[in-house]
């Protein structure tokens, strides 16, 4: 099953091994600030007041990811933060999204992830720049491509991305697929 979810909704979700144990839960999502992809997760013991764990979960070690759990093969899938740091990572929330031709589309408030066995980042939820849409706090969804420029403050998207902006998450999945096929069509 593939569906879309907001990356921060994974916070507090259990990390479950294939043999049904849950050693830890997701504490925070760490992004690769130069690609917009998810680098991995920091972890904590169960419960909102659970103490932070020294282990981290790298994205490559995720077996499957959905709205109710992040599944890993076994406890060996978790790596020790000291040796295998997510230190290069950071946050992409707060970045501004701008088109190639220089239109500011707004500020990233969420990262949208497609769930499943091969989960991936598919786009951003953006608080639209004032005046460009109806209400000031209007949220829209903008698809992410595999190759885009991110500086740590700004994310540059092709002008074509604006054709695939959607107002709600339910219509966004098909918009992402259309956007990608448009781009790959252009490259050929």
């Amino acid at each position, binding site marked *: 099953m593939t569906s879309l979810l907001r990356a921060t909704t994974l916070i507090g979700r*259990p990390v479950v*091994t*294939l*043999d*049904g*144990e*849950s050693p830890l839960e997701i504490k925070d999502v760490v992004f690769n600030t130069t690609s917009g992809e998810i680098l991995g997760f920091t972890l904590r013991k169960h419960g909102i007041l659970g103490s932070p764990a020294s282990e981290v979960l790298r994205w490559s070690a995720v077996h*499957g990811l959905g709205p109710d759990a992040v599944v890993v093969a076994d406890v060996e899938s978790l790596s020790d933060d000291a040796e295998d740091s997510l230190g290069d990572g950071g946050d992409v929330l707060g970045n501004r999204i701008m088109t190639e031709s220089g239109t500011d589309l707004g500020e990233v408030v969420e990262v949208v992830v497609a769930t499943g066995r091969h989960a991936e980042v598919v786009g951003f939820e953006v608080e639209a720049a004032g005046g460009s849409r109806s209400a000031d706090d209007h949220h829209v969804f903008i698809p992410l491509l595999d190759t885009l420029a991110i500086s740590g403050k700004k994310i540059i998207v092709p002008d074509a991305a604006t054709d695939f902006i959607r107002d709600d998450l339910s219509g966004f999945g098909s918009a992402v697929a259309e956007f990608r096929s448009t781009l790959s069509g252009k490259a050929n």
Partner: protein
Amino acid sequence: MRWRNALGREVVDISTAETIGHVDAMVVDASASSIVGMVIGNQVVSWSDTGGIGSDAVTVVNADLIREPKSDLELRAVEGASDPISKRVITEDGFALGSIADIEFDPESGTISRVILGDDHIAGSRLMGTGSFAVVVRSTDRSTADGDLASLTKSELYEMAKASDIDGRSTMSKDELIAALG
């Protein structure tokens, strides 16, 4: 036969006609979708050393077949860590399907046919692991790779029908969804 009905069944040594104990728990090998042993107190007996669950009792030819737990599966079953009843079911791609009401299995072979979730059920062949937190099962796509739509829950079938844009899906029964998707 149902898991809950098997618990408490008498275990009898047929060489002495003595009752050795009762079935307190069972050992599940999820990757084989089978029950592979029974827990009697702090000890275990391999399924293959019994005649399975008889209609009134479990019989063993010799009390020595009741032994200390050896494998990891047996140890976890004795500790109660792998008891599947009331556990939440999570797919390997992170979807919760509900919690386990009971497990249906063949009383002779121990093969698990169905995992009962409230008023729905999934195929025993989807089992991947049973732990203290959850029972993990194969994802929707991997479970239907061989076309076995009946292995899914109704809500999983509904999501598939939604993805294939099948008309009238919201009023369909589980069987109707299977027919429409098949």
